[in-house]
């Protein structure tokens, strides 16, 4: 499992591909605070990779580095075999990396459908001039992309609220719409920042099922942050554990569960 190039097959028969993204010695500081300290890990194609750790461990900061929102002071991001230059977030999105946020970041003034359609924007490139006439290229592009968006909407079972303004939705549904928007981009890597935070048990079960289905049906590589150990153990192929900006564990859920540092961090053993 340490070789980075080959694929392997999991116990439940899914094929996990070679490394698609690699973080090398990432260090991120905010003034005096070191949010991420010299962390390296990789993400393989087709896997569900979890990042866990207590509050303030630097998990969201790590996703923000991946999506180009924070620029680390040290370290390199490698994507699909080459070193990624410093990029703006919209350029990262164009490379096929989509995400959701810990605090929902939907477009409140728009309907569910329009929000999902914004996920298609990286696939739509009709010029301003053609769009002002609509008929022809603009309309064809709109319809083709609408079909993809509708597929995602069906998949996540939100057909009934398609035309509802998102500001009227419940918290749980908003989380689902945000997932729909990210999925609509048909990303190669999907980053989920605490997709189940604040949900009730039933909503959590739905969300877990959707995450597994996305991975299964579209083969999407998923990196997700989650608090709930139980959920992580069920969902993920491999887990990175962070604590106070440091990586304290990395491996299969079973490896991680039996790792003494991880147990200490989760049980709140005093740090030296």
């Amino acid at each position, binding site marked *: 499992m340490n070789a980075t190039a080959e694929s392997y097959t999991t116990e439940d028969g899914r094929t996990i591909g070679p490394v698609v993204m690699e973080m090398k010695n990432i260090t991120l500081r905010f003034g005096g605070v070191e949010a991420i300290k010299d962390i390296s890990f990789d993400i393989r194609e087709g896997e569900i990779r979890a990042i866990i750790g207590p509050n303030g461990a630097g998990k969201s900061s790590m996703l923000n580095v991946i999506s180009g929102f924070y620029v680390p002071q040290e370290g390199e991001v490698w994507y699909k075999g080459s070193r990624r230059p410093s990029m*703006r977030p*919209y350029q990262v999105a164009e490379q096929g990396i989509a995400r959701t946020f810990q605090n929902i970041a939907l477009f*409140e003034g728009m309907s569910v459908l329009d929000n999902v359609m914004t996920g298609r924007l990286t696939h739509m490139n009709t010029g301003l001039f053609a769009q002002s006439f609509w008929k022809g290229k603009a309309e064809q592009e709109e319809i083709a992309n609408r079909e993809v968006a509708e597929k995602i909407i069906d998949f996540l079972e939100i057909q009934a609220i398609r035309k509802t303004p998102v500001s009227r939705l419940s918290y749980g549904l908003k989380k689902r719409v945000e997932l729909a928007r990210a999925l609509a981009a048909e990303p190669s890597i999907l980053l989920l920042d605490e997709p189940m935070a604040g949900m009730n048990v039933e909503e959590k079960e739905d969300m877990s099922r959707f995450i597994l289905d996305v991975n299964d049906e579209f083969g999407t590589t998923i990196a997700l942050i989650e608090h709930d150990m139980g959920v992580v153990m069920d969902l993920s192929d491999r887990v990175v554990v962070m604590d106070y900006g440091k990586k304290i564990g990395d491996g299969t859920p079973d490896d991680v569960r039996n790792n003494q540092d991880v147990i200490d961090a989760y049980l709140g053993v005093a740090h030296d």
Partner: protein
Amino acid sequence: MFYREAGDFNTSYAEDQQTFPIKFDRYRYYVVLFIAIFVVPFIINDYWANSFLLPFLIYAIAAIGLNILVGYCGQVSLGTGGFMAVGAYACYKLMTAMPDVSMFIHVLLAGLITAAVGVLFGLPSLRIKGFYLAVATLAAQFFLVWLFNRVPWFYNYSASGQINAPERDTFGILITGPNTEAWATYMFCLIFTIASALVARNLTRGSVGRKWMAIRDMDIAAEIIGVNPLRAKLTAFAVSSFFIGISGALFFSIYLGAVEVGEVFGITKSFLVLFMIIIGGLGSIFGSFAGAAFLVLLPVLLKIVGVDWLGWPTDIVAHLQLVIVGGLIVVFLIAEPHGLAQLWRVAKEKLRLWPFPH
């Protein structure tokens, strides 16, 4: 059930995406269009053209333009008067430099020139937002008026410092100067208004429109789903200024005929158009029309009712108008940010269910 959509299903995405998905709305729209094109020109007179129809059509274009920037893209602007002035002076320079070219071309070119100027003044929007951007556009407003006042080249060194529209025709029909006919100027403006509304509608329902709205609603999330913020904002400034430039060109050449820049395109003009979209509805093409109609009609109606019928002094009526507009702005900003357009939607919703609301 005055209003119904029962049995009116859209069976394809193309149908669902049309401007008026409900048949009833579509027919009403065609009727309005028919009247505007085939009835009004035959009954129009100078009074109605000058007191209502021309300013309504021209302001509607400006309101559509500003609404794209403010209502759809969320970038506040107080520079509308200045950008209308750019359109007006561009049109004037083109008319005098190339007397044989059609006015259609001049007005369109004036729009394009204003779009370029708008992009220039939109550049700071990448760095500054909200209040500070409003102040920056305010600076643009004052700078542009100052420029057109102070640089004689813009008014062809005329002694008065004003610009006057020379007589020009299109397809042999006179449309500028003192000897025009009401139907001709009306039709000329109507064509631009309809075209502007269609283009604005097409842009706002597609991917550009979603980029603008994404920036408006949450710029950070917009960037993370792949919207280039600078490009989205600058296209909004460009498209917005294009319409505002056209409206300035028409306002000068067709409607007024002569312009003293500080008087016509001052800061009050910026506020007037802003009030139109606040009252009409932010983020709504229909609202742009409603707001323009309301603020153009209000003084006319107040004058007819107050001065002509009730015999009140003119200045009282003028003050009353300010009070009404001010009050409405406050009410709409607090209670209904989506303006008359939203009230209309709500009314339709009620009518659709009437008389069985449950």
